[in-house]
C-alpha cells in the first residue's frame, strides 16, 4: 500500500511544505548556518514521517513535540536581526512545523488519559499549545515579512517590554482594574440584582421595567462614556459610572429571568407549606436563579473591562490602562500598547476564570456542571 495514504493529512501537507522550502532555499540570505538548515529539514521530515511508525501515543507525542518546536526555534533565532529577509523557504518551513504541531495537538486530543491528573494535564496542554502557536506564528510573520514594529511588534518584544515596565503596568492595573472596574462592577451588579428583586416583588414595576430593561441592554451604552467623564470628573469615579451603567441591565434582565426559572411544581410545593415570599425566594428561587445570575456576572466581567478602558479615552489622570494605550500609541511605543493589552487580556481571563470556578462550586447541582 502507498505509504502516503497511511499518513495523516497534516504530515502530507508538512512534507509538501518541506519540498516547497527545498525549492526556495536558502532559508535566509545570510545568518543561517548550513548545519542548522540541515537540522531544520531533518526535524521536519522526522515529524512528518513519525506517524508511519505507529509508536505509542506518549512516544509519538514526544517526537512530534521536538519536531515541531525545534525547527521553529531555529528559524526564529535565525530571523532575529535579519527582519524582512525571509523568503519562501522560511515561511514554508514555519508552516511545516506548524502542521506538525497540529498533528501533535490532534494526537493529544484523541489520547485516552489513563488517570485523572493525566486527563487534567491534557486538557490544559492542548489549548496551551494552541495559544503558543498563535504567538509563534505572529512572531514568524512579523519578523519574516519585516512588518515595521511600530505597526505590529513581535510577541518577544512585547514580553521584554512587559518585563521592563512592571511598575507602570502595576500602577495602571491598580487604577483601572482595582479602582474603576471593581467599584463599578460591584455597584452595577448589586444595583441590578436589587432592582431585580424589587421588580420581582412588585409586579407593576416588573411589567414596566422589563421591556425597558430588555431594550436598554441592546443599546450601545458605551456611548455615554464621554458624558460620564463630563459629569463625574477625570478620576476613576467616571469610569466606574460607565461600568455601573453597562453592567446594570444585563444583571437586571438575567436575574429577573432567573427568578422565573424555578419550576411551577417546585413553587407549588412551597405553597403547600404556606411558605412566605422571602422563604420561597431564599430557599427556592434564588438557588434556581443562580445559573442565570452567574451568566450575568460573567458577561459583565468582560463588559466592565471594556467600559473602563474606553472611558479612559475621554479624559483621565495620567495613569490607567486606557490612558496608557492611547498615549503610547501617540508616542509610537506600540510595544507598550500591546503590553497593556496583554495585561488586560490576562486580567480579564483571570476574572472570568475565577467567576467560572465559583460558579462551578455554587451551582454544582446544575446538570450543565454535573455533566461536564
Amino acid at each position, binding site marked *: 500500500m502507498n505509504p502516503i495514504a497511511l499518513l495523516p493529512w497534516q504530515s502530507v501537507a508538512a512534507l509538501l511544505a518541506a519540498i516547497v522550502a527545498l525549492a526556495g532555499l536558502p532559508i535566509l540570505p545570510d545568518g543561517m548556518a548550513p548545519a542548522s538548515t540541515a537540522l531544520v529539514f531533518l526535524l521536519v521530515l522526522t515529524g512528518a514521517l513519525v506517524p508511519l511508525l505507529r509508536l505509542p501515543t506518549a512516544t509519538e507525542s514526544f517526537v512530534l513535540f521536538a519536531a515541531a518546536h525545534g525547527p521553529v526555534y531555529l528559524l526564529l533565532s535565525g530571523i532575529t536581526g535579519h527582519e524582512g529577509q525571509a523568503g519562501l523557504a522560511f515561511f514554508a518551513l514555519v508552516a511545516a512545523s506548524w502542521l506538525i504541531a497540529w498533528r501533535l495537538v490532534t494526537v493529544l486530543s484523541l489520547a485516552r488519559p489513563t488517570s485523572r491528573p493525566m486527563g487534567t494535564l491534557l486538557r490544559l496542554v492542548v489549548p496551551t499549545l494552541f495559544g503558543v502557536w498563535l504567538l509563534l506564528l505572529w512572531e514568524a510573520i512579523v519578523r519574516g515579512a519585516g512588518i515595521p514594529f511600530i505597526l505590529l511588534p513581535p510577541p518577544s518584544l512585547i514580553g521584554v517590554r512587559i518585563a521592563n515596565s512592571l511598575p507602570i503596568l502595576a500602577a495602571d492595573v491598580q487604577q483601572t482594574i482595582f479602582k474603576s472596574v471593581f467599584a463599578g462592577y460591584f455597584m452595577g451588579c448589586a444595583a441590578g440584582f436589587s432592582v431585580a428583586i424589587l421588580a420581582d416583588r412588585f409586579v407593576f414595576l416588573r411589567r414596566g421595567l422589563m421591556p425597558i430593561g430588555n431594550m436598554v441592554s441592546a443599546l450601545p451604552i458605551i456611548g455615554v462614556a464621554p458624558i460620564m467623564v463630563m459629569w463625574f470628573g477625570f478620576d476613576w469615579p467616571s469610569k466606574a459610572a460607565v461600568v455601573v451603567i453597562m453592567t446594570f441591565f444585563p444583571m437586571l434582565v438575567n436575574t429577573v429571568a432567573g427568578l422565573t426559572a424555578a*419550576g411551577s411544581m417546585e413553587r407549588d410545593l412551597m405553597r403547600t407549606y404556606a411558605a412566605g415570599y422571602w422563604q420561597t425566594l431564599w430557599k427556592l428561587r434564588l438557588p434556581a436563579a443562580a445559573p442565570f445570575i452567574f451568566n450575568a456576572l460573567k458577561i459583565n466581567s468582560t463588559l466592565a473591562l471594556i467600559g473602563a478602558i474606553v472611558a479612559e479615552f475621554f479624559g483621565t489622570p495620567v495613569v490607567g490602562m486606557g490612558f496608557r494605550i492611547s498615549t503610547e500609541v501617540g508616542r509610537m511605543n506600540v510595544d507598550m500598547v500591546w503590553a497593556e493589552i496583554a495585561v488586560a487580556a490576562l486580567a480579564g481571563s483571570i476574572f472570568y476564570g475565577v467567576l467560572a470556578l465559583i460558579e462551578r462550586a455554587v451551582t454544582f447541582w446544575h446538570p450543565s456542571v454535573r455533566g461536564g
Partner: protein
Amino acid sequence: MISAKGLDLTFQTGDGPVHALSNVDLEIGKGEFVSFIGPSGCGKTTFLRVIADLEQPTGGAITVNGMSPQEARRRRAYGYVFQAAALYPWRTIEKNVALPLEIMGISAAEQRERVKRTLDLVNLTGFGKKFPWQLSGGMQQRASIARALAFDADLLLMDEPFGALDEIVRDHLNEQLLELWARTNKTICFVTHSIPEAVYLSTKIVVMSPRPGRVTDVINSTLPKERPLDIRESTEFLAIAHRVREGLRAGQSYED
C-alpha cells in the same frame, strides 16, 4: 374529612373556556384511601389541587377538615406528593426532607430526629447525605414521599407518585404505602392511571371522565384491609377491576 358539593372549575384559556371540573360531589371520610382514575385531562390533578388550595374553584363548595382549603393550607393540614419527585437539586436528600420543617420553624434537633425517622420509614436510611441526582428514580420518589410525611399531616395528597417507575418497584412501593397507611391511619387521596394499582390500594375508587371533567362512578372496595400482592389474582379483585374498566370505557371514546 373532605367534602365537595357541586364543585365547578373552568379555566379561561386562549382557545376558550376549559371545564376541568363540573358539578363534582364527593365525600371522603377520615382514614380512607381514595384513588382517582380516569383518562388524561379528566381533572384528577385539578381536583387534588383544589383540595390543596393551589387552584380556586369557580363554583360549588369544598371543605377540608371542616375548613376552607386556604385555611387548611395555612394550618399545614396536608402533605402533597407531586407526579415528579420535585426535589431541589442543590439540597441533599436529608435537607430536602427537612425543607418543610425549616419553613415551619421547627427546632434543629427535632428536624434531625424527624428526618431520620421518615427516611427510615421509606427505606432510605443512609442515603441522607446524597444529592437527588445520585439516586435512582424510585429512590427519589420515596424521598419525596418522605418529605410529605415529615411534618405528619393527617391528609396525604398524591398525584401519580409512581407514574414514572417500573412495575416491580411500583409493586414494592404500593405494598409499603399500604402498610404505612394501615399503621398511621392517615387519609390518602391518590391519583393513578393504573387500574390494578387503584384497585389494590383503595377503599374507594373515584372514576372520572373528561370534557367536562366529572365523577362518573364511585366504587367502594370490598377487599379486606390486609392485602398481600397476590390478592391481585383473586376473582374479587378482578371483578372490581372489571367494573373500573367498564366505568372508564363508558366515560370516553377511544379517539385521541
